[in-house]
């Protein structure tokens, strides 16, 4: 199983933590992007410069809209669990305080809902919320800056048998990053992979949600429903499954 990225949004719709995994030196990169041909280089035409900031806004817009739609149809207690595109699976967990946890994994991954809940209960609450000196709110995108939390998150992901990976949408970034001795770990404050170009047109069509979200939900939805990128959402009750320990 491959995990691509992880986001936390607070109740003010602010992204307070984001983390994108890069492949480890001897990693399973090939597996996660088997369709990649090595000859493709950035063409310089039609490129969109996209940073992790843009990504988090995109992800937020998507889950926010999807959540609202699901609630409209399924009642206030309903919530979506995950959605799947042809390239990745987005897992979602929301607490009653409106903190949203989002994780992107590959398609083979089972439901990460419980894992996200564990991250909330055992890592976020313990290390971030209860740290008396850390602020309760994170205005201005300062975000969670907590070593214990980051380390534990890393361990948690590995413990669950996940290998860090990179989405095909970022493949152009890989060649730039692959050569460097950097390990998979990048703190959210220092996103090294900041301006990654998302590649040529054919690439853009493969994943389903690629354009900036300012286009609105309809746009990404249309894109999502287009024959090239299919979307399937799993919807379930918000009533949390057991919160028991491992």
């Amino acid at each position, binding site marked *: 199983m491959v995990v691509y990225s992880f986001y936390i949004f607070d109740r003010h719709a602010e992204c307070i933590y984001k983390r994108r995994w890069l492949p480890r030196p001897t990693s399973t990169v090939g597996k996660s992007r088997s369709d990649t041909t090595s000859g493709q280089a950035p063409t310089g035409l039609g490129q969109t410069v996209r940073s992790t900031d843009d990504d988090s806004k995109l992800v937020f817009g998507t889950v926010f809209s999807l959540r609202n739609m699901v609630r409209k149809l399924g009642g206030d207690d309903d919530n979506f669990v995950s959605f799947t595109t042809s390239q990745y699976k987005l897992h979602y967990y929301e607490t*009653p305080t409106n903190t949203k946890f989002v994780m992107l994994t590959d398609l083979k991954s089972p439901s990460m809902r419980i894992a996200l809940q564990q991250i909330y209960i055992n890592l976020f609450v313990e290390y971030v919320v*209860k740290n008396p000196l850390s602020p*309760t709110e994170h205005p201005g995108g300062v975000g969670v800056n907590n070593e214990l939390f980051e380390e534990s998150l890393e361990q948690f992901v590995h413990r669950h048998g996940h290998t860090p990976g990179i989405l095909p949408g970022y493949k152009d970034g890989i060649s730039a990053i692959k050569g460097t001795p950097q390990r998979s770990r990048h703190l959210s404050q220092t996103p090294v992979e900041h301006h990654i170009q998302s590649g040529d047109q054919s690439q853009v069509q493969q994943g389903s949600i690629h354009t900036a979200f300012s286009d609105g939900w309809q746009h990404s939805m249309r894109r999502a429903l287009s024959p090239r990128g299919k979307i399937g959402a799993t919807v379930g009750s918000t009533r949390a499954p*057991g919160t028991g320990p*491992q």
Partner: protein
Amino acid sequence: MSANKTSRIGEEIWKSVNPQTPIITEKPFSIYSTAFRPRTQANQLFPRRTRVDKVNAELVTLTYGTIVAQLCQDYDSDYQEVNKQLDKMGYNIGMRLIEDFLAKSGVGRCANFRETADMIAKVGFKIFLNVTPTVTNWASDNNQFSLIFEDNPLADFVELPDDGRAQDELWFSNILCGVLRGSLEMVQMQIEAHFVSDVLRGDETTEMRVSLVRYIEDEMPPEEE
């Protein structure tokens, strides 16, 4: 009078919330922060799940008493101001406490304000202070209720200063109002809470009045330029 009151805190409730949780006894410490918790490899991943933290009841009482006394000194016995500060402190505590509450209890959103009131009294206060105030005096629109505290661990051993004003102005346990305000705000409820009587002032009961102001709407991300 309450030698091991808080030493019981939460125990029953944890057992009932999560019967699988093995109760492993460890040294009692830390009511709130993780700062004093030994950070071994093992409890770094699942630091809290396997045990119940306990703390000596007198320590809580004395700590809280010291805070109030210090505030009274700092604000030159301006008790209105002390009430305000206590409320503010409670607000900040509540905003964090609610996350701990949700993480531990695993409860979802309440369907209405009546359910919320019961949750506060029977689960919230039970977990954190091991008291169960009575919910009563509902307003006809179901948006206002009173909590009657028969037992208030914060106020054990306390006598209000005999300066003729504290009896009328100081709400000793005002921090609790703030805690409720902070924690309910995090779950999208704006409330107003204040004490209306306190046994410390010679009243029959200790009563807190809680009223729902409004439900807070979801916040939208700021529009992009």
